[in-house]
């Protein structure tokens, strides 16, 4: 056990604390000495070598490698958790409604699905959770929920790992010592009682963004009892620009809803609407639906942005602009489109052409276009976006407004301001009792607030969170939060639709829901969250039959008709009076991390190990910069001999100064990043995140100030230090292999038949001209030539998959879904750096330049998810000496884990390198919580065994059994692979290619269907559809 956060007060035995501890301990406890009992750190130090299980040496057998540490059992915690296996927990008398088919009883081996909701950073996504024998194992999107439509994202997919995280806070503690919940309630009510007469003066509540109607009501009620108490809100990953921009434009906060299905032209001003933010899954679906070959009028996306985002990578035209230029561009465009009160500013060659082209495009598509501004953008950009949309008549068509979906304190004017007033109060001594419900402000508050110092002045500090983190350390009380899969709650999503959060499992530890915590501050302290949530909705519901309303809402995963009413707004005439933005030679952009967001997922191994969509970095963040900036600074990187392009990178470090603070961090070159600015993602550099998340990356909050919360002027210089990064795809160039790997074309060429992507890239070797769907090496080539006989699938199914590269946005959801479905282990940064990362489906990112863009400065990016190709003539099958990988009667390359001896010959001979090897014992067999996580339908692999994508063979077999029971063939679409089911853009299609009517067969019949490295004649079952873009001819170079 890691004792680093034990701060020794003194070395003497503290009898008082021993007594207190004994009093609070449940059941019998045994001790050997008073030293042990007092948890004296000296004693611990002496004991550790005697019990090597506890020592660093044991946990860290590979020198610096810490992968075992990451997933290893916490022996100290094991004792606690073993008593709380879900089958043994007290089943609360609260009804949970199963989705789809309510069984009479739980049938072993048959999963049940329940609808629930993931509340996340002020929004919510409806999900279905697969539950095996009472333990949740997999998250799927809820097709009926407006924010999901069946899709899911990386945060949702990975959230299940957090449920079973052994590092989560487990019991209520007071000054680090376990206390009972009752003890806390007693202490809290005592403190409150003494303040009741004063109207709760000095009491403060600090929450994150609140979108739970029940919680909002609870807080309102509490504030009614204690009128002088105050409620503050703070989120470090959500920009205040959205709210302030709306206020600037309309004089009030609004919630903006976009309808991409009605838009022809979309301009993103630094917005990553496809991957992050409220409604992203729905928007990604609508976006991709407007970009299919069957679409009549294909949507065109322009993206002007500083950092390369998933949305920018998916765009047809991308313009890298540093933040101040982005404002200038928005203004120039607004002025050009005739928005009153906006002056275009000085002409800037960087975007001059774009203003002309976009003015024309947008004016041609009045009422059918969208201008959308990003989370990190300043208020002015949001206001300009509103004004442009108004000017174009988009409001009411593609854009609608509602009241904000979140609930805010009175007089709320942004998270930073709200926190500022709290800090001011704390500093002035006006606060003597503080409840921090969610969030980690000691880590992520603006540096200039000196939040920790201010908080020390509060007499009673209570922290409520999932982890015992940086903030908890400085608070008196800590209350463990329940995971959403253990909680009753509710949440409103992007359009205000409310849904119930229902628990899938009783709390694994002694956690409490946020409703129970706030109930502790009210006059009804003993109410359970089930009662609270149900009572709230009972009060909201005026239909006579509440019970059926409640059942239906739980079953569907949403409360029907609860979307917020549309609202009309009028543009303020003086909206842009004060709107000057300071430009600087070098600017910095802060942005939530694509995988761990603002640090709340720092201890989630799946998200830490997930390669960032564009940089493919794992386990770290870095100062992202354009190649030109890197060249000026003289920073570079080199591939290590260990792992190389696919793992270990040695990168130069830079020192970044911003607002008088400096931070040393690794530099990373991102083609397409805007010049003159750098990006630093939030969420890293945590000191007390847990075994997985502590001390990874660089803490952006150390240079983040309230004045320029999302960036501003910065200084950057190279320092003579290097840093080791683990990056899964370092190779930037295609080596002229684009034809075999990534085929691209345009909608226009494709529809007019001019698409020659299946011939392109071969220069003189254009033998296959005019022959559709033939390998490019010529029509005369004996395509079927093989030493081995053809397989016969005529009597069976033949499974196949297509991946539409037009739709794929590289969001990574499939990779995490696969990890969750198939029990893929986390291996740690050192192992990733060795080139061993285990994802069964990897998302390859390729850059290309075309006539429109400068290479490196602004390349086009394409994403290619690569699972196993399930080749017909599989090179892996013939080389395995023990027949551990063999061809199934339905055409899958089956892996027989039991039979595998691990020669790795199959992996060597795989042209696609999709096979993954358990070089060490990667799977954690000892942590009890993590055992619960595993999908029981998939073998858990041990050391020395090869593994790879199976096309989710367990799902195929499940469907087969169901079909055979009903004496019918498996229907098309009945089998949905894990990657397919979560894909927000439906890029992945799976089915029976023996059936010419199946969706996958029809896609494979399309002209743009191709396989990777066709010339090897491996005949993959997984094929790709050419990536089609919709560029504007007017934006071409020269």
């Amino acid at each position, binding site marked *: 056990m890691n004792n680093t956060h034990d701060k020794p007060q003194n070395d003497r035995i503290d009898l008082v604390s021993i007594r207190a501890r004994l009093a609070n301990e449940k059941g019998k406890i045994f001790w050997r000495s008073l030293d042990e009992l007092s948890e004296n750190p000296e004693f611990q130090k002496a004991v550790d070598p005697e019990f090597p299980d506890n020592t660093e040496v044991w946990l860290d057998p590979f020198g610096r490698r810490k992968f075992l540490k990451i997933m290893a059992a916490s022996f100290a915690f094991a004792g606690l958790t073993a008593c709380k296996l879900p089958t043994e927990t007290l089943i609360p008398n609260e009804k949970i409604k199963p989705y789809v088919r309510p069984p009479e009883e739980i049938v072993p081996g048959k999963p049940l699905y329940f609808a629930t909701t993931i509340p996340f950073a002020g929004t919510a996504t409806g999900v279905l959770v697969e539950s095996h024998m009472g333990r949740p194992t997999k998250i799927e999107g809820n097709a009926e929920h407006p924010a999901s439509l069946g899709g899911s994202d990386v945060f949702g997919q990975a959230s299940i790992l957090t449920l079973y995280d052994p590092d989560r806070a487990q019991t209520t503690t007071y000054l680090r010592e376990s206390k009972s919940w009752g003890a806390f309630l007693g202490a809290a009510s005592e403190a409150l009682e003494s303040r009741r007469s004063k109207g709760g003066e000095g009491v403060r509540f600090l929450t994150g963004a609140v979108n739970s109607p029940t919680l909002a009501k609870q807080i309102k009620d509490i504030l009614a009892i204690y009128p002088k108490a105050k409620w503050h809100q703070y989120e470090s990953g959500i920009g205040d620009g959205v709210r302030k921009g709306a206020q600037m434009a309309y004089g009030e906060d609004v919630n903006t809803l976009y309808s991409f299905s009605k838009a022809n032209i979309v301009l993103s001003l630094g917005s990553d609407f496809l991957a992050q933010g409220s409604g992203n899954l729905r928007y990604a679906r609508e976006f991709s639906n407007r970009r299919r070959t069957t679409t009549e009028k294909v949507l065109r996306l322009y993206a002007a942005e500083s950092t390369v985002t998933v949305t920018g990578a998916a765009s047809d035209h991308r313009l890298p602009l540093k933040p101040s230029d982005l404002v200038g561009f928005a203004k120039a465009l607004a002025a050009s489109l005739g928005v009153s009160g906006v002056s275009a500013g000085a002409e800037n060659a960087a975007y001059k052409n774009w203003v002309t082209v976009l003015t024309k495009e947008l004016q041609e598509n009045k009422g059918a276009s969208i201008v959308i501004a990003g989370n990190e953008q300043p208020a002015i950009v949001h206001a300009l976006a509103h004004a442009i949309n108004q000017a174009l008549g988009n409001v009411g068509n593609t854009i609608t407004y509602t009241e904000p979906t979140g609930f805010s304190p009175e007089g709320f004017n942004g998270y930073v301001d709200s926190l500022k007033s709290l800090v001011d109060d704390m500093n002035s001594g006006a606060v003597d009792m503080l409840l921090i419900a969610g969030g980690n402000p000691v880590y992520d508050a603006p540096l200039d607030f000196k939040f920790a110092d201010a908080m020390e002045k509060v007499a009673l500090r209570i922290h409520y969170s999932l982890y015992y983190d940086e903030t908890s350390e400085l608070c008196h009380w800590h209350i463990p939060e329940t995971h959403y899969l253990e909680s009753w709650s509710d949440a409103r999503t992007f359009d205000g639709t409310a849904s119930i959060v229902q628990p899938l499992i009783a709390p694994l530890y002694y956690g409490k829901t946020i409703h129970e915590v706030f109930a502790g501050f009210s006059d009804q302290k003993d109410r359970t969250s089930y009662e609270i949530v149900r009572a709230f909705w009972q009060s909201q519901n005026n239909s006579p039959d509440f019970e059926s309303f409640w059942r239906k809402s739980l079953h569907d995963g949403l409360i029907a008709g609860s979307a917020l009413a549309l609202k009309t707004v009028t543009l303020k005439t003086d909206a842009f009076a004060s709107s000057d933005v300071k430009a600087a030679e070098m600017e910095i952009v802060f942005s939530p991390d694509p995988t761990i967001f603002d640090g709340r997922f720092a201890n989630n191994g799946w998200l830490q190990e997930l390669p960032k969509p564009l940089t493919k970095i794992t386990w770290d963040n870095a100062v992202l910069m354009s190649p030109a900036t890197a060249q000026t600074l003289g920073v570079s990187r080199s591939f290590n*001999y260990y792992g190389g392009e*696919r793992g270990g990178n040695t990168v130069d470090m830079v020192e970044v100064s911003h607002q008088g603070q400096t931070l040393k961090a690794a530099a990373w070159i991102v083609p397409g990043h805007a010049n003159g600015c750098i990006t630093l993602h939030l969420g890293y550099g945590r000191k007390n995140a847990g075994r997985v998340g502590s001390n990874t990356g660089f803490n952006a909050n150390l240079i983040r100030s309230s004045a320029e919360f999302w960036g501003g002027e910065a200084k950057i210089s190279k320092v003579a230090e290097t840093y080791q990064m683990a990056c899964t795809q370092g190779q930037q160039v295609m080596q002229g292999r684009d034809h075999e790997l990534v085929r691209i074309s345009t909608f226009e060429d494709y529809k007019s038949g001019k698409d020659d992507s299946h011939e392109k890239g071969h220069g003189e070797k254009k033998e296959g001209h005019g022959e559709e769907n033939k390998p490019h090496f010529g029509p005369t080539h004996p395509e079927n030539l093989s030493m081995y006989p053809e397989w016969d699938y005529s009597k069976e199914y033949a499974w196949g998959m297509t991946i539409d590269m037009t739709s794929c946005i590289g969001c990574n959801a499939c990779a995490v879904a696969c990890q969750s479905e198939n029990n893929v282990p986390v291996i740690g940064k050192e192992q990733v750096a060795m080139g061993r990362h285990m994802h069964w489906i990897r998302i*390859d990112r390729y850059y290309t330049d075309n006539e429109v863009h400068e290479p490196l400065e602004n390349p086009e990016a394409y994403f290619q998810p690569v699972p196993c190709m399930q080749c017909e003539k599989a090179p892996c099958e013939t080389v395995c000496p023990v027949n551990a990988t063999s061809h199934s009667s339905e055409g899958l390359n089956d892996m027989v884990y039991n039979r*595998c001896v*691990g020669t790795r010959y199959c992996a060597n001979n795989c042209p696609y*390198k999709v096979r993954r090897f358990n070089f060490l*014992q990667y799977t954690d067999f000892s942590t009890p919580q993590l055992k619960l996580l595993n999908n029981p339908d998939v073998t858990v692999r041990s050391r020395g065994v090869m593994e790879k994508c199976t096309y989710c063979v367990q799902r195929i077999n499940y469907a087969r059994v169901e079909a055979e029971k009903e004496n019918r063939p498996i229907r098309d679409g009945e089998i949905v692979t894990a990657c397919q089911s979560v894909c927000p853009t439906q890029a992945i299609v799976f089915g029976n290619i023996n059936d010419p009517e199946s969706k996958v067969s029809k896609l494979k019949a399309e002209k743009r269907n191709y396989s990777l490295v066709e010339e090897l004649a491996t005949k993959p079952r997984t094929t790709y559809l050419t990536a089609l873009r919709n560029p504007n001819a007017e934006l071409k170079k020269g």
Partner: protein
Amino acid sequence: MEANSATAHQHQEPVLKDVIPVVNPGHNFETVSDKISSIVLRERTPITLIMALGIAFLVMNLLMAALTKLLYQGVGVWGLNTPVGWGLDITTFVWWIGIGHAGTLISAILLLMGQKWRTSINRFAEAMTLFAVACAAIFPLFHTGRPWFAAYWLLPIPNTMALWPQFRSPLMWDVFAISTYGSVSLLFWYVGLIPDLGTMRDRAKNQIVKMIYGMLSMGWRGEARHWARYETIYNLLAGLATPLVVSVHTIVSFDFAVSVIPGWHTTIFPPYFVAGAIFSGFAMVLTLLLPARYLFNLHDFVTMRHIENMAKVMLVTGLMVFYGYNMEAFFGWYCGNEYEFYMIYNRMTGPYWWVYWLLIFCNGVAPQVLWIKKVRQNVYILWGITIIVNIGMWFERFIIVVTSLHRDFMPSVWGMYAPTIWEWMLYAGTIGMFIFLMILFVRALPMIPMFEIKTLLPQSKVRHKE
């Protein structure tokens, strides 16, 4: 050696002035036996040999440490990863198998071709073969993820589950090829030892030693019957071993040639591997024989004739190998296949460029000095060349295994590989084991076949009148 003598005496042996004899003048049956057997039975072990044995033993313990670590934690202690699934393990495996080739070639093919000069060095080379195969066999077993299963799942053992190995897999063929090669080499070596074991038994003074040699000699009394049977079996085994010289490395080359990876998938591999194996085998024989010759004063039996002949074999096979390198490069360009072209381009200019050019220097350029007779006859320079060739041949296998894998079809999964300390320890450990066994061999068995040397003496040339 009736058969050989019979063929030999029919020809008028050409009398060449310059030819250095295979056995220096002044020896008779008695002195040959004395000289060779006394190394084992009479002389004190040279102190250098004892020290060498001690060092070799220590180095061999690296093997034990490396294997313990490997079995305890898994293949992950090595530097392997997803594009590069084989590294130093298979590189070294092929290297050792190649070294083992000289023994069989000298014993079998040169025997059948009536090359008399082989007699002084064949036993030494055969022992080397055996120990090299033993070293080689460690790698295919322990490179697997689960050696405890690999140890027998690759064998076609009938079982109730009706599970068989995959007979299409070259690794499967390897199992047969290497085990056949190992057992035939062992038999050949042992049968060739029997007459000399009889001599050792007769000359030993210590009762226990006498008994051991006595058992090993299987009652050899030098009867005509014994000699007749010995000749039959020895020639039969030579016939059996001859195809093995070609087949073993051919099959080892199939591990690569049968795959689809550019740089592996090539038809030139079988002959090129065999030539390379003989090349490295002769280099290793010389590397070991030259010091042994000096240490045990064997100049009379291992003459300049042997050394020069071996140097010539090295030159010829070295040229074949060099031709192979050039053809690889030529076809990389000529075939017009972008993957093949990139493979050779990457070898020459990629991150492992220095390994490639070292290989070209070691195996292609350095052996060219062997055209010069003076070099062939200078044991010091020659020994240096053999070391360079040994290193070069190791690099060759490294280039084939690693540079082909690390950048194949999809640039997105390109990676790099470097061996870890545990791989180097394993490699060093096998060298230690090899030298340890060689030293035990020269100390415990007659390293030069006494009875065969005797057939080369003028005494044995007494002819009956026809």
